[in-house]
């Protein structure tokens, strides 16, 4: 539609722009709940609360698998041999450099707590398998050592560490 060109913006121009601006703000505001509803809801968040795990049944050399927030977590009671092997590795040669101390809690280095998801494409690696006394992922052959660090295969990073803390010597809280 043609309007007469005038040097000053007319009342109609103002009304058009004001209406358009309010409609735009309204549309953006309407979008907020539609997008926010896909975020985790309160029950999912509540189900993802920290869990406590009792370590006393886990003997040396054994490991257990627990789930937290839907992720499998390996908790291994490492043997002396596994601990020494992990500490003896030359850190600068690692693809994802990290010392064994950085991957365990001080005074509790016999406990390895890692998320059991291969950092390549997400399969669950097998525990106590592979050439490094650690983990072996059957999907594409990634191999991790007894501290869960990537040593061989296509995975780019070490197995992730979940947030955890020792409540007592035999109980940890994950999350």
């Amino acid at each position, binding site marked *: 539609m043609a*309007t007469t060109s005038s040097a000053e913006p007319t009342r109609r121009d103002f009304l058009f722009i004001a209406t358009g601006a309010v409609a735009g703000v309204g549309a953006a505001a309407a979008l907020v709940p539609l997008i926010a*509803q896909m975020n985790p809801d309160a029950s999912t968040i509540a189900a993802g609360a920290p869990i406590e795990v009792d370590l006393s049944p886990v003997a040396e050399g054994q490991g257990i698998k627990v789930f937290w927030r839907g992720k499998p977590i390996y908790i291994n009671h490492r043997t002396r041999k596994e601990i020494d092997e992990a500490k003896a590795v030359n850190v600068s040669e690692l693809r994802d450099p990290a010392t064994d101390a950085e991957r365990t809690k001080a005074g509790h280095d016999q406990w390895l707590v890692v998320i059991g998801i291969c950092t390549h494409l997400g399969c669950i690696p097998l525990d106590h398998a592979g050439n490094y006394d650690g983990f072996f992922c059957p999907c594409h052959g990634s191999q991790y050592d007894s501290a869960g660090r990537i040593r061989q295969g296509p995975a780019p990073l070490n197995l992730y560490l979940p947030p955890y803390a020792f409540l007592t010597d035999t109980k940890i809280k994950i999350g």
Partner: protein
Amino acid sequence: MSGQSTYQPQGRFMQWMERRLPIGGLIHSSFVSYPTPRNLNYWWTFGGILSFMLGVQIITGVVLAMHYTPNTELAFKSVEGIMRDVNYGWLLRYIHANGASMFFLAGYIHLFRGMYYGSYKEPREVLWILGVILLLLMIATGFMGYVLPWGQMSFWAATVITNLFSAIPVVGDSIVSWLWGGYSVGNPTLNRFFSLHYLLPFVIAGVVVLHVWALHVAGQNNPTGIEPKSDRDTVPFTPYATLKDAFGLGVFCLVFAWFVFYVPNYLGHSDNYIPANPAVTPSEIVPEWYYLPFYAILRAIPNKLFGVLGLVSAIAIMAFLPWLDTSAVRSARYRPLYRQFFWVFVIVAVGLGYLGSQPATGAYVIIARIFTAYYFAHFLIILPILGLVERTKPLPNSITESVLGDKVAVPVATTGVR
């Protein structure tokens, strides 16, 4: 008459597109330059409002379906999960539930507008019938949606409405167990109602496309009921009708928002917050308000089969309106006698709605029967006769004349808006 082809695509991309898929031109001729009668009043904004409500219901519905579980063990809990746990779930649920009521409110106003101004008359009969089909689809969709929360009202509404089909002789019971997917309303029923409730709104959207197409072929009716005779009788759809629709929509949304945020459960029934119990029927089963008139008609007829037929024909008879109304004059504005009967009909329809909400006892029954008889008499007796005997008021010569009065002769200097 469809729009003048004045569309000149701006910019290289639109020119490229227009040669390959002329959607720019289609939108322009349908919603920008489309010649709209200049005298449309706010009763004409409800078509746009209905389209908006369909969009709202589909969007909120799809989003709710991300969190709802259509299983009898889990449905009620999943709805409570939406209300309590899902971010803004309470808002989405209340918008969707009250949106259904607003959808029907707008739909009934739209329908009554058509009845008053004779919008169903030649050449808009198919447009009108498509509207009746849309009403039927809305009724089906709303019914199935109400079953989904699996409350007491959900379950018993499903039982009662599906049992209506048992009134059909010979095949009735087979049809009912086919609908149920079992020997009573149960999980198969709920599951399939969810599937169909998700499907039908898109069927509605398709029929709306046909409805708007049929409208654009004939052109809009207007309060005088006489067709536009020249360019002076019409204005381009944008900005006039677009902004009038937007304003009407804004006011409508205020009413909608008032329900959603202040009285979100007012239109609902508290019994639907009780999980479905197949062993106990609530003392008063009442459908949602938008079904009440038809519910009243069903109950008023004391025979099972004829009650069901009455219910169905109360809606179906609308489709025959173009042929039942014999008047040559469209708009009630020029039909003083019809206008009175129209308002009586509105009162009867609303009255039937009230009666549907009351127990079927005593005086309520008698009045419901009278109103039901009048309802059908309006269509089958009053309208045909009225057209033949009514003395109508003289029609104006043109729409412009009805708007501007005697000042038609002098062309008004416009500021360039075509």
